[in-house]
């Protein structure tokens, strides 16, 4: 049962910014994640600020430089089936298609998918965990099958988004509008590791709204994919996965974006792997080497050491698929 809250539906972004700056205000885009959190008592909301009236934030349009602008309120279904995205930025289309279920993709938005709260069962459940302001991360001594092998400290969530890793791999940027005006930043910089702040996943300040995602123009010879490994065929978050955005010129990798999902509190970019790939022809040997490197330094917990071979396998398979 949902708790009681005030409902606000601004008509403009500036109204939204104002409404969201109020204490206890929560943004409602598609609402699929927000309502779940409110039902579970993960946090409460004095007011729910529905962004659904902001038509400017919906839709996909080309940018002057050959890139693409995706309004933050564009649904995942629209992103997944957009022919231009599937062609030019396939990792994103596949990531959007791999999220949740058809109905949730019809409702959930790209902005919401980036800003959703983690699926950690201690965070969602009746546990006073560190991310909710408590003393401990229950995953450390508890049931940590689905938790982080990279980047955890004080909290070991994995980032739940299937679109975040592709967007980081694609070097996309987001536009954020807040009380102090608008700013743009790389998607990679949107997310916060627990070492910096274990109570939040993004750098968004109160009142800030993510308004659009900008995809840079596809590089010549661009290839990409998103490979997600999950326990169940639908409606399941990644056990591990990888987003690849490569460009290949004269048979050699000219640029590479390699970002893991389901392994760290943020999308987990592996620059060493990107560096390794560039300038080389993608073959089985390189794929195996890159896969090995991708999991280097992993720090598994008691119940998630499987993620090391699983992610390694996924990276190798994904690279070979693009070879």
């Amino acid at each position, binding site marked *: 049962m949902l708790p*009681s809250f005030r*409902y606000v539906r601004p008509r403009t972004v500036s109204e939204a910014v104002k409404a969201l700056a109020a204490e206890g205000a929560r943004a409602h885009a598609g609402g699929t994640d927000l309502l779940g959190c409110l039902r579970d008592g993960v946090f409460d909301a004095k007011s729910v600020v529905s962004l659904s009236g902001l038509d400017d934030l919906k839709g996909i349009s080309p940018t002057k430089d050959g890139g693409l602008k995706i309004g933050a309120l564009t649904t995942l279904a629209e992103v997944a089936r957009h022919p231009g995205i599937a062609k030019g930025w396939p990792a994103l289309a596949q990531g959007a298609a791999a999220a949740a279920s058809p109905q949730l993709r019809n409702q959930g938005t790209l902005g919401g998918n980036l800003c959703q709260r983690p699926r950690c069962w201690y965070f969602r459940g009746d546990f006073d965990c560190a991310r909710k302001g408590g003393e401990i991360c229950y995953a450390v001594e508890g049931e940590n099958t689905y938790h982080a092998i990279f980047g955890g400290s004080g909290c070991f969530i994995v980032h739940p988004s299937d679109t975040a890793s592709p967007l980081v791999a694609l070097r996309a940027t987001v536009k954020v509008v807040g009380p102090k005006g608008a700013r743009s930043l790389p998607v990679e910089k949107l997310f916060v590791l627990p070492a910096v702040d274990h109570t939040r996943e993004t750098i968004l300040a109160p009142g800030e709204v993510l308004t659009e995602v900008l995809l840079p123009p596809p590089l010549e010879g661009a290839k990409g994919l998103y490979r997600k490994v999950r326990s169940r065929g639908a409606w399941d978050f990644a056990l591990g996965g990888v987003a690849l955005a490569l460009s290949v010129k004269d048979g050699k990798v000219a640029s590479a974006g390699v970002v893991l999902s389901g392994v760290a509190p943020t999308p987990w970019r592996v620059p060493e792997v990107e560096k390794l790939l560039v300038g080389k022809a993608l073959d089985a040997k390189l794929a195996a080497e890159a896969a090995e490197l991708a999991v280097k330094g992993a720090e598994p917990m008691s119940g998630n050491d499987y993620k090391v071979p699983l992610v390694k396998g996924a990276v190798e398979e994904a690279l070979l698929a693009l070879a």
Partner: protein
Amino acid sequence: MADGKDDRNDLDTNGGVSRRGFLGSVVPAAVGVAVAREALSAPAAAPAVAELPAGEPAKLTLVVNGRTHKVLVEPRDTLLSVLREKLGLTGTKPGCERGECGACTVLIDGVARYSCLTLALEADGKKVTTVEGLMEGEELGPVQKAFVEEDAFQCGYCTPGQVMAAEGLLRENPEPGLDEIRHGMSGNLCRCGAYAHIFKAVDKAARFRKER
């Protein structure tokens, strides 16, 4: 109308469930308490509600199955609860109320969504179709007929949601292949495990819809 019919003049003053006829001394879900009905002249163009304090009921215009309803809702009321408890449309089923089963699937502006994760206020100005809206009078619609013929259910509780998901899928893709059917139906759990028959039924429903 998105569902291809317009029964705006088909008003009734008896709780809006005349099709079901006599149900003895009971009615499914509280009907009519806070409901007023009016003939639909045009779907509401723009969302009306801008702000609503917690716990405060406000009048909302909902267009469900081609009929316009004015209902009193508070911010936390979901579309699911309003359909069932205020409009008496109990075909839409709660299974989890957290977007994890699909039993509550309805079409909003022709697109399949979970009514449990949709605030009623978010349906403001949109066209909602429920399983009752697929009926053609007392006759089953094509998807429903296909589900009967292929025995695509057991206990039947998830069935309205399955039917609506299939309807949504077929509106978007009138001739889905088997793999598209499996993906399209992957947002609806069936604990009785009737999936194989559901796949057949959706395939058959596509044919029935075409023949119509």
